[in-house]
């Protein structure tokens, strides 16, 4: 016997479920219709995008006045923004300035500035990356937006803003360097491209960040220094070869190899004789990335490595580097 007292609850359960079902089915149907309308409008939108594409290209090449807006219909501004980014990658200097002017006339800058205030961090970050293109035509607006985004609560937005600002003038770069010095997000891997971009012009900044850094941060900074081939940081990499942390020793050796430093082979030899077999293996892999004649001696020394994995890899690398006759069976 089911107690009568639960009847209202049961009634509520099935009514609420049916209402939920009705709502879900209606939204699904609306989405299907929206998609259908989108599919029907797709050819028209593609034509509009092609017209805008033509206009932007001709404006960038100086064949058309960038300020003259072509007749509509226009595709969504986000699509135009993507198109502008694609076209911008193909040109430099005056061409990019004209392209930015044409895009600004089409409302792309306003769209990006609005996006830079979106509630979604990913959209703000995307806007931050694209704003740099408009710096030559609207420097004040872009600098103000980037300054605001540099203080954004989301790390990825700050990184994106810093990357963009690092490519601008001296004042913007100083603001970025300032932010990097006091922002923990720049110790993460994602911020490295930005650090490298700035570091290329300001090795002292990287060096100052390495001062007192923990092992993980130091390793990443050394990797960044290596990729940017910042020779002024070589002494720090050489000193780090004896760091107690495995990751730092590896990053230091990698940095020296990337910098093509004269002591790279010696660093690799030291790494290949490390007590940690994983590190010895990594040293061999580093040699595989940039094979050089001096490495043969290091590889031969590792053929009798107590770790079979290291010996196995040394044998294989030696087979690639040296004539077959020189490789022991």
């Amino acid at each position, binding site marked *: *016997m089911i107690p009568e007292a639960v009847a209202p609850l049961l009634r509520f*359960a099935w009514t609420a479920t049916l209402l939920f079902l009705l709502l879900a089915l209606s939204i699904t149907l609306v989405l299907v219709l929206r*998609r259908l309308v989108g*599919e029907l409008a797709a050819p028209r939108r593609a034509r509009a995008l092609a017209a805008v594409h033509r206009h932007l290209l001709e404006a960038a090449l100086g064949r058309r006045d960038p300020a003259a807006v072509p007749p509509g219909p226009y595709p969504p501004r986000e699509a135009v923004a993507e198109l502008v980014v694609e076209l911008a990658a193909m040109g430099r200097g005056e061409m990019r300035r004209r392209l930015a002017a044409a895009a600004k006339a089409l409302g792309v800058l306003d769209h990006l500035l609005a996006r830079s205030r979106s509630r979604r961090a990913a959209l703000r970050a995307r806007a931050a990356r694209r704003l740099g293109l408009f710096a030559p035509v609207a420097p004040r607006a872009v600098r103000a937006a980037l300054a605001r985004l540099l203080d954004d609560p989301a790390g990825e937005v700050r990184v994106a803003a810093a990357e963009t600002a690092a490519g601008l003038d001296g004042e913007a770069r100083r603001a970025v360097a300032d932010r990097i010095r006091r922002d923990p997000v720049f110790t993460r*891997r994602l911020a490295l*491209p930005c650090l490298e971009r700035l570091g290329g012009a300001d090795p002292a900044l990287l060096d100052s960040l390495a001062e007192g850094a923990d092992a993980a941060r130091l390793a990443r900074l050394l990797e960044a220094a290596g990729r940017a081939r910042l020779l002024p940081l070589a002494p720090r990499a050489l000193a780090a070869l004896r760091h107690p942390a495995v990751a730092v020793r590896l990053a230091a050796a990698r940095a020296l190899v990337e910098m093509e430093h004269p002591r790279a082979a010696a660093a690799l030899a030291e790494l290949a004789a490390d007590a940690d077999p994983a590190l010895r293996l990594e040293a061999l892999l580093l040699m595989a990335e940039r094979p050089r004649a001096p490495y043969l001696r290091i590889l031969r020394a590792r053929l009798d490595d107590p770790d079979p994995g290291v010996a196995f890899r040394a044998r294989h690398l030696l087979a690639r580097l040296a004539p077959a006759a020189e490789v022991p069976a």
Partner: protein
Amino acid sequence: MTMTSLLLALGGLVALTLFAVLLFQQLFYLLLLTVALAALLLRPPRRETRTLWSELVDVAPSLTILVPAHDEEATIVDSVRALLALQYPRFEVVVVDDGSRDATLARLREAFALEPVAGPPPQRLVRAPVRGVWRARDLPRLTVVAKENGGKSDALNAGLELATGELVCSVDADSLLESDSLLRAVEPFVLDETTVAVGGTVRVANGCRVERGRVVAAELPRRWLPRLQAMEYIRAFVMARLAFARLGALTIVSGAFGLFRRDLVLELGGYRRDTVGEDFELVMRIHRHCRERGRPYAVHFVPEPVCWTQAPERWRDLARQRIRWHRGALETFFAHADMLTRPRRYGAPALLGLGTLFLVDVLAPAAELLGWLLLPVLGLTGGPVLDLALAWLALAVGGGIALSCGALILEELELARVPRAGDLLRLALAAVVENLGYRQFVNVCRMIGHLQWLRGATGWGRIARRGFARPTSGEASS
């Protein structure tokens, strides 16, 4: 009190208990749907890869793709070629031929001009003996290992020993990855240094047009059974896994496509060979290991990376697959059930992950099945029987349809991977049909899996696969 009234009271109690379990299940799914919606709104998936490459090219950690293969001669060469062509800055592919009886190894040796490497590889994990290792002279990123047959976990362990990447990605040999899937999946490792594992979305490849190991045209399955599974996968990945990851309770990273930190997997002793749910088991061990050591860690799910897999096209194969999955889930659940007794220590993965596994995947299917069987009988017990029957039907069928539609809405609003409006409509229809027999069938399979687990059954069983649709010569040339 007479015997009849006692039985009636007991019947009423059973009916209400079954209803309560079903209600809990559907409310829990509704919670997951809400959390998944919030997760997608807070961090919308990236649709374009152009910027992703430039952002990650310098900072993406090195990665090893592990491909266990057993009797895959028909597809292995195309699969490996497609893997080698993936967009990722630093990666290698380690194919493990797990004692194939066909020409899997011969096909690989011929296609990639493999050369044997002298000396046995080091043995650090438990696995069957290795017969040999081959490397391609022209493709330094490819390694092939041949070993005695030992099962998928065993093959993964052999691959792990030769892997050199900071991360390892396990991929089934018959699965197809989208070219940018690794880049997308690796993003959490870059953004969050505590990330130890990342799962990606798996989709049903039946019906898709495949050329040289790559999906060139995503289509919905033409047959109803795989189409129902396509809907089921959308619900499982877009709704459930995303929500669990957001709640810090993701306990499954699909074996078809999952990324792990190699050092951690090695530290844990690799994959366990005594379970058919090795992916689930590994993630549970990661949770346990990190929490016991107070180590900060995170297991993420990224909805955008897509791995295409073949779904069973016959009911019999589907039943085998689901029975095996359920057995694997039970094996892992009971291997780690003690975590439930210490919720403070093991937190969300124990309470939400294991707890809901028990309530939603073990208890609820049994309750639902029992409910369908007992509903006509319970009608005789008296009281507001009509209300109970309506509420049951509404929750079991209507609630299921609404939740599937909810997942489809999320998919369309945030991911938009369904190719056309017509396909979206077909999937919506599948969401309805799925709840009128298919879900009940899967529940029966789960119960059989339960019984098999009680009997101590082992092994994977064979599932017939049709192979991916290949273009005709005309299509290929065009």
